[in-house]
């Protein structure tokens, strides 16, 4: 299971990083989403992988650490909200400038005077 989880995190992160390095807004948004998936699983795994264990200290030797689960919940909420925001930003940028390039247009006096 360790190998499966670790390679999944690695693969998703690699794909996310590749997509973030693209020039258009849509791949960047997808890349950021994938990165947040990878980091959620990573945080979850930080409390060690355990199967069929209670998430509380019961006096037994084996238990699943509940704290990373709480951290992941917070991280999911934040990354969900941020993804929604950046989608809206990308969309409005596309509608107002009619291009989905992530570059900032060149800055010149004539463009400002427009």
């Amino acid at each position, binding site marked *: 299971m360790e190998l499966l989880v670790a390679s999944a995190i690695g693969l998703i992160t690699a794909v996310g990083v590749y997509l973030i390095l693209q020039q258009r807004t849509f791949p960047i948004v997808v890349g950021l989403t994938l990165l947040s998936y990878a980091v959620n699983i*990573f945080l979850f795994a930080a*409390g060690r992988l355990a199967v069929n264990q209670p998430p509380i200290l019961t006096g037994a030797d084996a238990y699943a650490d509940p704290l990373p689960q709480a951290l992941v919940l917070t*991280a999911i909420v934040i990354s969900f909200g941020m993804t929604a925001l950046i989608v809206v930003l990308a969309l409005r940028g596309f509608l107002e*400038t009619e291009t989905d390039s992530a570059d*900032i247009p060149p800055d010149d006096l004539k463009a400002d005077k427009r």
Partner: protein
Amino acid sequence: MTAGFTTDWVIAPAILPAMTAALLIVAWRRDIQMQRIVSVISAVALLGIALFLFDLASDGTVRAYRVGAWPAPFGIVLVLDRLSALMLLLAAGLALAVLIYALAGWDKRGRHFHALFHFQLLGLNGAFLTGDIFNLFVFFEVMLIASYGLMLHGAGARRLRAGFQYVAINLVASTLFLIAVGLIYGITGTLNMADLAQKVPQVTAGNEALLKTGAILLFLVFAIKAAFVPLHWWLPATYAAASAPVAALFAIMTKVGAYAIIRIFGTIFGDGAGALANMVIPWILPAALLTLAVGTIGLLASRRLLDLAAFSIVASMGTLLIAISLFDVDGLTTALYYLVHSTLTGAALFLIVDLISERRGETLDWLVPANPISQAPILGTLFFLIALGVVGLPPLSGFIGKLMVLDATYETPHVWLIWALVLVASLMMTISFARAGSVVFWKTDGRTTGATWATAAIAPMAAVAVLVTASAALSVFAGPAVEVFHATAVQALDPAGYIDAVLTSQPAAQPTGQ
């Protein structure tokens, strides 16, 4: 219960803006006058609270407020010491000046300016107070989410594009932050800063590399926030595209990165961290020198006043980081002095640039010959004074700050490199500001444009004048100020008091009911 009562005030700088912002959205979402009144009252109250806490912390005791009365390290603690009190006071003072500036009309150009402004203050104050790394992440996010809203305030195509990049880079930084948190928690089993300071030295040799990776990732996150070269590319575009009061408030956002570096790497990974002691410190000086160099080159290449202001923030971060890179009491004293100075003058610079460009009609802030502007004598004087402060010429606080940087680095091995760079950079900055000032105020022709004394609002100019006066006061009262910063630096570098306040001296844990 007086002791408990005063400690309860530690959470007030987080609660007050949160309540204000929520109230502004719910109760007066369409009534701009009420929004302004409530917003200013709240900002004044926040400054009062910050002054009270600053006075409270100046006795040298560290106070820990346990949220929900959970014993540390299980619950979240908010910690007030000299360093956090100083940052709170700086943020509250800057916020009030910027808010008064924004009242002249900027706050009407988009919706919810005041609510977002107070949410931003909530994030800033929380980040300065928290004693828990994950909570620091949450407050960073609060701060950033509000800053996304403020950055896009009064939108426009260019601001949207710059905003997209700003959000994207910060999402990447947040991801790195979470990975760092995961690594640190996975190894030590705690995220409480005081608890970490105790557990990091005991980490076994096999886990050192993982923990070190976590710490370096954390450093990387703060470096993005503090705009270290080569992680600074987001800053000039964002700050130049944001509206003036927002850019002025953002002057303290880079300082949050510097604060977090001092806090985390002074308390947790400081001298007492065993095998991991001070491991990021060698990285700071090269980054600082590069940041100063790139900031200065950017200043020389600026074609508009906003770029000048944005790159002067980058350059000032470089100088600040040179002082931080020493990571001793003298270095931190200097760093704190320079931090306060550069926040005040950086913010003042963005505001004065806005005042100038709104009077220049279509040429805005571009450094091209244009019509003479109204109220040029007073605006020119303010611009000149602020430029003196930013560049580091006497008599304002920039001069003393730079002198302290030179003095503190005198005995380091790279003194020749640091001195040469700081001095050459100062010369280059003088040239760029002299050039900008002469184009704007002297290379003029034709009819005077802009609001006159009869029509112009006084408040924005007063806000700028207050910031300049604060910088001058920092210069006049440099002696007492340096004493305060010295005491702050001593406390920040000695984690024993911090650990004691958070972990040792707390009420015994209640026995849990079965």
